[in-house]
Structures are given as C-alpha cells and as structure tokens.
C-alpha cells in the first residue's frame, strides 16, 4: 500500500527528459525498502519509479504535474527525496 | 587418411593463397550486398594464418584446425571472423588425428551446426551455410569427393536468387536478390583448395 503521496509541478525547462529520468530512477533505487510510483494524472496509470525505461517513456514536459506515491518502511523518506529532486529541476544546470 | 606435417603445410598454404588471390573478387561481391570488406577481412585473416603456417602445421590435425580457427577469429574482424573461426575450431574439435572420409563428414556436420548457431542462421538465408549443406549431404550420400568442388561452386552460384535475412545484406531485403553471397563464394573457394590439395596428395 502507498501511504505517502505528493504532487509536484515539473519546472525544469526541458521537462523530465532522459537525464532527469536517469536521476529520478537512480534516486528511487536508493530506497530499497520503498515502493515508489509516479503518474501524470491522479488516476494513473501509475509507473514504477525504479524503472528507468518506463520513466523515460513518460515524456513529461515542463508544467506537467508529477504525482508521486510511496509505500514501505522508507516510503516517507523516498517521497520527500523524489519530490525535492523534481523541485530542484533535477539539479540540471540551465544555460 | 594420414595427413602428415608436410601435407598440413600444403593445405594451409593452398587455402590461404587461394583466399588471398580472390580477395578482390570477394570484395566486389560484398560491395554489391554487404559493406565491401569481406575480401579485405579474409585476406588479413589468411595472411596471418600463412605467416603462422609452420607453427600451425607442426601441431596435430585437430589442433592445427583449431589454431587456424583461432587466428581467423582474432584477425579477420567483421562477422566472417567468428563464423569462419567457428567453422575451423569446431572441425578441430570434432576430427580425429587420422580421419576417414566418414570422420571428416561428421566433423563437417558438427562444424555446420556450430556455424549455424554462431550466425543464428540456416540454409536458404544466402550464407556460407548454403554451400556447406549440399556438400555435407553429398558426403553423407557417399558421393565421390572429387565432385565436391563443382558442387560447391554451383551451390555458391545458387545463392544468387536468394534473399538475405542475416547480416548487413539483410538490410537490402529484395535488393540482395541477384548477387552471389560473398561468404558462400569464399566457402566454395576454400573447399576447392582443400579438395585439390588432398586429391593431389
């Protein structure tokens, strides 16, 4: 069950493209005791945030809302970390 | 049949020289349907074999065949390296020191299977397998080995109307039709060189 949820606007100019997708997936994978899913609509479809191929296929652009839900022992921690990454524009350097 | 060191040397020499002499023809065939490097790659490989001729021939027949295969794997580059390498390495693994014609036939059958697996291909796909298969069938039918070179040449020519489904030629689809497969051609050349040398021995 997913006990924690958040919705974060993607403000990164280039959206959730390939490099941010890798970052998001890598970060999600660091929480072994959490299931993390993301979706572009509240009703889903929900996608495993640890699957880099599926996250890349999301093709979420700037201005889209990324819905995140997480469960498990590290669920709260994982949710906070992922939401923060999206808010930080995936630590991309803008030129 | 006893294939002594002198005969092993002659076999290596003849096969290598035949391939090297036909490098340009093979390249021409490959330019039509591949990337045009078959002749160059094969020449590089067989020049390396020729350079090691004495060292290879000093070993037993199975080990010598294996060594030829290994040299081709390392030196040919391109897909022909592992395919011809596998052919000779498997021949080496399957053939006894003093093979009868039946032993040689079974070794060729094993090599045919190994090449098929390596190339993930089969008969009818416009490859070297289209030459090995009829030669193998003829040997199993007890055909006179003297007729094999002509049979192999005909089998190589018969790849002309085939459509390639593996390798670079497969990207051409129907446009691969109408050209002899360079791998089939080089296989026929090698077989003729082997038969001629053994026939003269």
């Amino acid at each position, binding site marked *: 069950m997913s006990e924690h949820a958040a919705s974060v606007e993607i403000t990164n100019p280039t959206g959730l493209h*390939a*490099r941010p997708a*890798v970052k998001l*997936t*890598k970060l999600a*994978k*660091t929480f072994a005791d959490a299931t993390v899913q993301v979706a572009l609509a509240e009703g889903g479809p929900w996608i495993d945030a*640890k*699957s*880099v*191929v*599926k996250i*890349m296929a999301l093709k979420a652009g700037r201005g889209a809302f990324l819905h995140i839900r997480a469960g498990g022992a590290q669920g709260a921690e994982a949710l906070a970390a992922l939401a923060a990454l999206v808010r930080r524009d995936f630590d991309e350097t803008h030129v | 049949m006893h294939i002594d060191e002198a005969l092993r040397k002659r076999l290596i020499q003849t096969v290598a020289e035949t391939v090297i002499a036909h490098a340009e023809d093979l390249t021409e065939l490959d330019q039509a349907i591949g*990337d045009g*490097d078959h002749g*160059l*790659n094969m020449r*590089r490989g067989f020049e390396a074999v020729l350079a090691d001729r004495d060292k290879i021939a000093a070993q037993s027949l199975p080990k010598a065949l294996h060594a030829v295969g290994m040299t081709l*794997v*390392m*030196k040919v*580059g*391109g*897909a022909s*390296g*592992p*395919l011809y*390498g*596998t052919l000779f390495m498997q021949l080496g693994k399957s053939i006894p020191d003093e093979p009868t014609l039946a032993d040689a036939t079974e070794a060729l059958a094993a090599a045919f299977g190994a090449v098929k697996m*390596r*190339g993930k291909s089969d008969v009818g796909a416009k490859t070297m397998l289209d030459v090995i298969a009829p030669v193998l069938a003829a040997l199993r039918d007890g055909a006179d080995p003297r007729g094999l070179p002509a049979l192999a040449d005909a089998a190589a020519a018969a790849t002309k109307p085939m459509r390639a489904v*593996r*390798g*670079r030629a*497969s990207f051409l689809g129907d446009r691969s039709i109408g050209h002899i497969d360079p791998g089939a051609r080089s296989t026929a050349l090698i077989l003729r060189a082997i038969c001629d040398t053994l026939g003269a021995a």
Partner: protein
Amino acid sequence: MSNVGIVIVSHSPDVAKGAADMVRQMVGEEVPLAWCGGNADGGLGTQVQDILDAIDRAWSEAGVAILVDLGGAETNSDMAIELLPEERRDRVVVCNAPVVEGAVVAATEASGGSPLAVVRATAEELSP
C-alpha cells in the same frame, strides 16, 4: 558489493566512445564501463580481441552486460564470451537492445546494484 559492468561495442570507435561518454555523464562513475570499436586497419568493424580486452577492463564479480550495434558486433561478442575463462563465461551477456539507449538504461539499472539478469532485462525492455 560490486555493480554489473557495461561494455559498449560498436563498429565505429566514435560511436562507442560517444555512448560511453553519455553513460558517464548521465549515470555517473559507480558502474565499471569500457568500450571498443573499429577494425585493425582503422576502418569500421569489431574485433574479438578488443571485446575481450573491454570485458576485462569493465570486469565485475557481478558480471558484465554488453551492448552492441550491428550484426557483426553481436557475432564477435558472442565469440568473445565463448573464449573467456570458464569461470567468467556465465557472467557475461549480450543485451538485445539499441546500443546508446541500452547502455544508458543498463548502466542506470546496474548503478543501483541490480544483478546481471535484471540489468539485461531492463535494457531489453527497450526492444519491442
């Protein structure tokens, strides 16, 4: 625990190196990575010895996943695997995936400590 290594094999050394650069920039340093490409004459091609050397450079006890481009790269990689010492042979696989995207996603998966079978399966999700 060591992460699965990634080897990139392309007919072109420029493509192989470029794909490796992308992996390093996008995924980072925690995955052993090596690449090879080109033939002995400096032209396009792949060579078994180069692939063996690349496997050695990217070697990890968790295994190595190889990403290849065109047909000969795959055939030569299969051949290289067969020539590995027996104790390594079962820990190297060729992924059926596009070389650049496959390398990035395989490395991403490997960076999280996933086993070889999972790394391969992730790369192969890219192939329909």
